[in-house]
C-alpha cells in the first residue's frame, strides 16, 4: 500500500500546515485570484517586482483549498523569489510536480498547478497580454 501516501509526504504536509509567504503585500505590482470551482480551491497571489519590473522581489499568497493546492502555492512562493518574469512564464506542469517532489495522481494535477497558473495569469494581465476578466481556472 502506497501509504498516504506518497502524495502526502512530510514536506507537503509541512507546507500545508505552515504555509510560507502567506498574507498580503503592501504594494504589489499585481494581484490575481484563481479558482477550481469543482474543488472550491481558491488562490490569491500578489507579486512585487524590482525597479526594472523584470525580477520578482516578493510574493505573498492567501487561499483556501486542498493540501496539494496550498502546499504547491506555498512552495512556489519561495521558488518565485528572484525569478525573472520570463522564467515565470516558462514554468510548466513538470516543473511544479518536480518542485513538489511527489507523484501527483492525474485527477489531482489541476490542484497542483493552480498557484502557478494564478501567478502566470497575473503577470500576463499586468503586461496587458490577458484580459483581466478571464478568471483563472485550471479545469478546462
Amino acid at each position, binding site marked *: *500500500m502506497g501509504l498516504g501516501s506518497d502524495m*502526502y509526504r512530510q514536506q507537503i504536509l509541512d507546507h500545508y500546515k505552515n504555509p510560507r509567504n502567506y498574507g498580503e503585500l503592501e504594494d504589489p505590482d499585481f494581484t490575481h485570484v484563481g479558482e477550481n470551482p469543482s474543488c*472550491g480551491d481558491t488562490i490569491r497571489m500578489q507579486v512585487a517586482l524590482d525597479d526594472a519590473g523584470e525580477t520578482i522581489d516578493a510574493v505573498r499568497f492567501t487561499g483556501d*483549498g*486542498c493540501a*496539494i493546492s496550498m502546499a504547491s502555492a506555498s512552495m512556489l512562493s519561495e521558488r518565485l523569489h528572484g525569478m525573472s518574469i520570463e522564467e515565470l512564464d516558462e514554468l510548466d506542469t513538470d516543473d511544479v510536480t518536480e518542485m513538489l517532489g511527489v507523484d501527483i495522481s492525474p485527477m489531482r494535477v489541476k490542484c497542483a498547478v493552480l498557484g502557478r497558473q494564478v501567478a502566470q495569469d497575473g503577470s500576463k494581465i499586468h503586461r496587458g497580454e490577458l484580459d483581466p476578466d478571464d478568471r483563472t481556472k485550471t479545469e478546462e
Partner: protein
Amino acid sequence: MGVQEQYPFDVEAVRADFPILDRKVGGDPESPGEGPGDDTPLVYLDSAATSHTPDPVVDTIADYYRGYNANVHRGIHQLSQEASVAYEQAHDTVADFVGASGREEIVFTKNTTEAMNLVAYAWGLEELGPGDNVVLSQMEHHSSLVTWQQIGKRTGADVRFIEVTDEGRLDMEHAASLIDDDTQMVSVVHVSNTLGTVNPIPEISAMAHDHDAYVFADGAQSVPTRPVDVGDLGVDFLAFSGHKMCGPTGIGALYGREEILDEMGPYLYGGDMIRRVSFEDSTWEDLPWKFEAGTPSIAQGIAFAAAIEYLEEIGMDNVQAHEDLLAEYAYDELTDLGGVEIYGPPGHDRGGLVAFNVEGVHAHDLSSILNDYGVAIRAGDHCTQPLHDEMGVAASARASFYLYNTVEEIDALVEAVGEARDLFA
C-alpha cells in the same frame, strides 16, 4: 455483535455475481494491473455515482450482440423481430417495476438528466410563461436544478426553491408557501444524493395537485435502492438511470402519466418516432416511441430489464433493508470516530449514503488518501453546488452503499478515514 447476521439476503452470494469486486487497486492508474503496490483489495463505496454490473446483466449484453443484434422496428427479418420484441418487452419490465400501467408510460432515455430535459423541453417550453412558476428544492441535483433554471430563463417562469432545514429535510411549511395556483410543476428529488434524505413525495404530490400542478420526482437514487411505485408516490413524472441499478450506462427511463405524454409534442425528431411523413408534414408514432427518435440503445435497454429482474430476484424490500442497515452502521461508526461532520438526517432515517467532511482535511485529500487504502468514494460537490453553498462547504466526501457492500467494507472506510484524520492532525 453481528450486524452481518441481520443481512436480509446472502451478500456473499450476491458479491460472487460481481467479479469487479475481487479486483485489486493501488497501482499506476495509467497502467492498471501492472507495477508494484497493485495489491490492495477494492472497497467500492461509490454506487450512488454508478453501481457495478452483475454477470447476468453483462451476459445479456453479450447475448444480444452475439445472438440477435439488429435494429429495432425496421425489419421483417428474424433478428430484427427478436431484437424488437426484447427491446419492447424491456419497457414492460420497467413499467411493472415502478407500477406504471404499461409501456405507453415508459420512455427510454440516455439517463435521468435526459428524462428531465425531455419534459423540460417538450412540456416546459410549450406550457410555461411569465406569471407561471416551477417549484424545486434546494437539494436538487444539477440535472433538475440547471434544467428548470434555464427553462425558467427562456420562458419567463419563476423558479422557486423549497428550503432545507438544519437537519437536512425539506421545510414543508416553506413548500406550502411556495406552491400556489401559478405553480405548473413541482420537481423534487426523491432521495437526496448528498444528504441521503428521503423526501415525503406523496405529501408533496398532494400539495401540488391541490393547485393543479404536475409533480416530477427525480428517482435516480430511490428507484435503485427501495420499492418505488408511481401510484403510491402520486407523481406525474419519475426519472431514473439504469447504471445506478446494476444496469449499463446509456439507458434510463422517464415515467410519465399517459394522458400527459399523449398531449406532449415530441422532444427529438427523426426516424422511428414518426407514423407518416410527407415533404410537407409528419405525424407521430404511438407512445412511447413518439419520444424515442433514432436508433435507441437497444442492448442497454434489454440489459436494463435484466438488471431489474436481477434486483427483483433479491427483492427491493431486501435491497432497502440492506441499505438501511449499512447507512446506519456507517453513520454511527463515523460519528464515533470523532472529527467527522456528517450532513443530513440521522443514520436510522436516510438512504444508503453518507456525505461528510473530516476536520482539517479537504475532501479531495481525503479521497486521495482513501484511494491508497483501496477505498473508492466520491469527493466534490456531487452535482449539488448550491446545496453545498448552503451547507457552507465547497466539497464533501461521500460513501454510498449497495446490495453488494458489507459491514467489513465500512470498517475499512472508517479505519482509513481515521488514518487520514491523524495524518493531517
